[in-house]
């Protein structure tokens, strides 16, 4: 029965619904179909709403009607595999990248990828990290900068997108939305990390991105420094300390 029911929920083909409809009480086929449709509607609407909550900026960017059309097709092709809906949508970005009607918005898939990662970051356990004052103290006590080991907590993620979706996301979170100065065609380098209870986006320039990437691979400050005079180490360290993404700082 549940095999038939599952098929009927995702099909408008009357033949595929026939066995189930024959087992539903009702005076007419129209009545039995209407009763079944309450469940179908509940399933689609609740899952489309869930996707709207997981990808709120994407929904805001494309509008409700466009988003719901995309979400409905996604629900058809990728129904959730878990009852924990905050984990739903892991393939949405990939799906959006192939969604024909979204081809004129080439940044949309990257935006969805960012939104999904941010939400998962929010639901991650709060990491153990050095507070700003702890990090400042460790740095001030260092005698040999070349021997400094700067460890970032493992959950913080470096992301690089071909479009300025971090800027777009942040612009949509401002009370006064101002998209005029946004250059969407620029690449975006981002660090996402936990700020208190929530996942948070920190924009980076290309040298900062390179430096943090090197630190994540090898925490030795001496080895992570980019060979580029325009890299501002002091400012970058100040940002990382303020964002509280260090799990440890020590001299080897």
């Amino acid at each position, binding site marked *: 029965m549940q095999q038939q029911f599952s098929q009927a929920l995702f099909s408008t083909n009357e033949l595929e619904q026939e066995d189930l409809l024959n087992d539903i009480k009702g005076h007419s086929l129209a009545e039995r179909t209407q009763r079944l449709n309450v*469940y179908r509607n509940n399933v689609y609407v609740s899952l489309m709403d869930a996707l709207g909550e997981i990808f709120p900026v994407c929904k805001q960017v494309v509008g409700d009607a466009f988003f719901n059309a995309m979400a409905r097709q996604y629900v058809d092709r990728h129904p959730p595999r878990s009852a924990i809906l905050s984990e739903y949508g892991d393939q949405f970005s990939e799906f959006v990248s192939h969604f024909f009607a979204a081809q004129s918005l080439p940044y949309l898939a990257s935006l969805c990828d960012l939104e999904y990662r941010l939400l998962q970051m929010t*639901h991650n356990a709060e990491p153990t990290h050095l507070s700003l004052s702890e990090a400042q103290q460790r740095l001030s006590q260092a005698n040999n900068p070349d021997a400094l080991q700067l460890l970032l907590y493992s959950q913080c993620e470096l992301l690089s997108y071909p479009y300025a979706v971090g800027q777009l996301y942040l612009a949509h979170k401002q009370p006064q939305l101002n998209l005029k100065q946004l250059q969407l065609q620029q690449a975006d380098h981002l660090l996402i990390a936990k700020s208190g209870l*929530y996942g948070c986006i920190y924009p980076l320039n290309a040298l900062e991105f390179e430096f943090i990437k090197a630190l994540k691979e090898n925490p030795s400050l001496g080895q992570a420094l980019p060979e580029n005079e325009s890299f501002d180490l002091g400012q970058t360290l100040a940002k990382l300390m303020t964002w509280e993404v260090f799990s440890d700082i020590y001299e080897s």
Partner: protein
Amino acid sequence: MMTFSKPQAEGKYLPSGFAQQTGISLKPCYYEQILTTRPKVGFFEIHAENYLSEGGPARHYLEEVRSLYDITVHGVGLSLGGDDTLNLDHLERVARLVERVQPAVFSEHLAWSTHQQHFFNDLLPVPYSEDRLQRLCEHVDQVQARLKRQILIENPSTYFEFCSSAMEETDFIAELVKRTGCGLLLDVNNVDVSCFNHQRNPYDYLRTFPLQAVQQIHLAGHTLDEKAQPALKIDSHDQPVTSDVWQLYQHTLELMGDCPTLIERDGNFPELSVLHEEAVMADRIRALVKEAQNAAAI
């Protein structure tokens, strides 16, 4: 059949507000206000599946609210009425939540929501047949064994009935209680919705419902789809409790005596004070019924 003691509200938390005063659904839009204003309600109820993450605001605020109030945990994703075996990873996560929160009660549904690893996010109906009952009992036994406590099963709201059902819903539920030792969560709104949708009398339904096993009541609002032929009530949880449901609630208490009650809301959220007023209304009805029953006993 395994035997379980009734859930205890004693321990490191407050004495049971659950038994004394009506509770409200815990939703993110109310977190800050609850902690600031500490409304006088008996408890808060959470959906288990919204509180299974390792961190973030849900986990944080649940801990804060738990330090002040009793909590009840309502599962919506175990798919107890499903053909499939239970998802053990999911059960394990729910069990860890229950161990952490120590709720006054844990409840789930007489429904299924997962088939072949696809989760439908709705509470889908089961035919009332012997083989379905047996499968459901196995799943309830399995959950009670893992959680090491009695669980409550909620009567469903349904939009159709199966021709293949071989017994009445109330008989099916009574047999479930008998075989598993589970308790029941009586959703009075579901009684109203299902009976309307199947042209049955809700008062007759209650007369045959195994009320002696009921340990919690849910009250919620529904919407009416008048365009449907016949018209259907939809269990939307996004409206105030209707006068029909309030009357049915009073009648239920007159039949079974006092019972811990929840004002359940899952959408179209009003000010917290509006839900609090509904909880106060439920408490007023509880007090009136108790008074009348005490007077009759003298």
